């Protein structure tokens, strides 16, 4: 009787069942790679952010710099490790054959993917928050000593400042969306090397192509608005908002659409393909 109740209760849970979540959590938690990847993502994000913040604004000169965006530069590197983790969450199951056991235990495949997504997003949000907070803190400590003082129009970086908070919180969300995008792509592609190649190609090629077509306003505008990395990172902009090709939240929305499309493709492929 209790068991029936429990089962009925579980089926109402939007992510299939809490047991699916628990299973995925156990899998992710007990693999050594997860911890190292998250730790590396945090360390590299903060290091690159601190290195970028260590730039100088010489006395007497005007420095047209978005300091919030500068200190969050490390996200561009950290996302690669987050993407790796997200890819491994599903593709390592395919490479070891574990996926067959998982799907036998959890025949509702979309629920299995949803459970993976929830666990992954939870981890990435936590690690992302640490990484971004560390970057902002590094900026707060380093920037004033390098000429970026309040007297020259660069107030001490603080999360109490609206645009800075939006840039920081948005960067954490950005990382979570990158994780979902990668998870979706890896579900479709299955092989980890190919999946990570596709994800990093999708992310890093757009800025390169963008600089190549810089002379063409139509194509530049398209890429800045719709390429996942360029659009998504507009959430970090705190100055010159009127000149942006897409609004910060709009840009993050474009990345969310990419992530949703990838996850949808993952669900469809998972349903209709043999594991």
């Amino acid at each position, binding site marked *: 009787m209790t068991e029936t109740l429990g089962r009925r209760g579980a089926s109402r849970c939007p992510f299939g069942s809490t047991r699916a979540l628990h299973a995925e959590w156990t899998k992710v938690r007990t693999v050594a*790679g997860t911890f190292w990847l998250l730790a590396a993502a945090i360390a590299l994000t903060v290091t690159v952010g601190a*290195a*970028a913040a260590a*730039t*100088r*604004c*010489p006395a*007497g*000169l*005007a*420095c*047209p*710099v978005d300091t919030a*965006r*500068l200190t969050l*530069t490390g996200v*561009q*590197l950290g996302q*690669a*490790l987050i*993407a*790796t983790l997200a*890819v*491994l969450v599903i*593709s*390592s199951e395919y*490479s070891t054959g574990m996926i067959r056991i998982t799907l036998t235990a959890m025949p509702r495949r979309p629920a299995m993917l949803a459970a993976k997504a929830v666990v992954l997003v939870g981890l990435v949000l936590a690690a992302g928050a640490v990484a971004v907070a560390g970057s902002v803190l590094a900026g707060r400590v380093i920037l004033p000593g390098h000429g970026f003082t309040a007297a020259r129009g660069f107030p001490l970086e603080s999360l109490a400042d609206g645009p800075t908070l939006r840039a920081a919180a948005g960067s954490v969300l950005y990382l979570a969306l990158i994780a979902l995008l990668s998870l979706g792509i890896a579900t479709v592609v299955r*092989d*980890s*090397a*190919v*999946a*990570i*190649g596709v994800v*990093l*190609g999708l992310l*890093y*090629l757009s*800025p*390169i*192509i*963008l*600089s*190549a*077509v*810089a*002379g*063409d306003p*139509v*194509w530049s505008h398209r890429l800045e608005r719709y390429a996942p990395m360029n659009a998504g990172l507009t959430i970090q902009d705190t100055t010159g908002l009127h000149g942006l090709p897409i609004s910060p939240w709009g840009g993050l929305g474009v990345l969310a659409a990419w992530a949703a499309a990838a996850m949808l493709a993952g669900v469809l492929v998972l349903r209709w393909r043999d594991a």
Partner: protein
Amino acid sequence: MTAGMTARRRAGERARQARFGLVLRAEWTKIRTVRGWVIGMIVAALVTVALGLLSSLATHSHCFARPGQACPGPGSIVGPGGEPVSDGYYFVRQPLAGNGSITAKVTSLAGLITYPPDHPNAIVSGVVPWAKAGVIIEPSTRQGSAYAAVMVTGSHGVRMQYNYTSDLAGLPGGVSAASPRWLRLTRSGDTLTGYQSADGTHWTEIGAVTLAGLPVTVQAGLFVASPSYVFTTPGFGGGFAGHLTQATAVFDHVSLQDKAARGTWAGGGVGVIPGGPALARGGLKESAGRFTVTRTGDIAPLAGVGRSIEATLQGTFAGLIVVIVLGVMFVTAEYRRGLIRTTLAASPRRGQVLAAKAIVIGSVSFVAGLVGAAAVVPLGEHILRAHGVYLHPVSTLTGLRVIAGTGALLAVTAILALAVGVMLRRSAGAVTAVIVATVLPLVLAISNVLPVGATDWLLRLTPAAAFAIQQDVPQYSQVIAAYTVTRGYYPLTPWAGFAVLCGYAALALILAAVLLRKRAA
């Protein structure tokens, strides 16, 4: 007995070579017979071509000239070598018939700089490093014509320059009334020889140049030019600005020696932009044999402008990502399926297996990159020209280096990926590590987030330095310009940059070989 030992050693050597040949063949068979590898390599070449064409198609020139008129952009003035040049200066001249020489004493070089970064709202006095004043001989005053000149410069001492790209150093130090510089240019047939002196009696030769086809009557005289003040804006991502400057030089003891009767000096600006700012016009004041000449401009090759065939190779990055994936998988796939145990059982010399794998994946990637680049360069060039984009002329040898270099870039990166794959044994980590090391530095360099100095160091120290192999525009030491990666300039020379990547690949291969020997498969 010694002969027997030598023979035995030779036989052993032969057997070892034969064994390596077999290992090599085994690896070649693996890559040739699995459809995924073949498709992957074709994809690597195709994305290189496709993205290159796409970015070429999306590039147009910003020429607002009326139809049928030439674009006033770079390339509208070209020097004798075909390279785009700037050729604007003040010229105080007389015709020189036959052999002869022109001599002048420079006693002062001063100038103005408009709105420098430390005084953004003022015009201050100052001389830019490559402000030029001296004597010049050229066949005509047409812009882009051949010439030879001896000059004093803002802060590079006396120089002899000819035909825009050549630059020889003379006496160091600045010029003043207390320490003047005497300059002389002698014409004998087609040969022009430059001399310098600190006192007007002891002369030393700086250099000589033969300008083929020099007409009998040439233009000889004094010239002054002052290039834009180019500085890095203290912002980020290669912010460069160039501000108008002006130089004023004082000459005396000016003499022209030739057979013909002495004429009078005529002054005028070469390359004057109609309606330009008053500061750009320049002028001449003459009194009692003293010539005070003022002008902006430059006689030098243009740098940091326009595009070159490198612009068609934007797809290299995509091709690179594909070969990185393939390079890593070439070994990690064996670990995953357990094939590595069979491979190592069949050829227990593990170093040989690694070498064979590196040779096979390197060669195949080289061919993919070579084919992709050889296809996209002429096609992209055609598209860009059709779109009215000016492309720097590139010599055949440089073109070959760029195309073969693209193949080599893919090959060595694939080998690096293979070695990292052996070290980590896991595909995802290895692919991420190599992509982050080779592609991300460039992404950061071109996406305007880091200051210029930091960008340069990224492109010196990381494997991304190797993209320098694609640089095909020359960097001139006598021209200060925006030598940034978005304009096709890298901080290292092509081969030095490529050597950095080779160093990383070699190091990774050694580490991989050590680990492969030590670890149980």
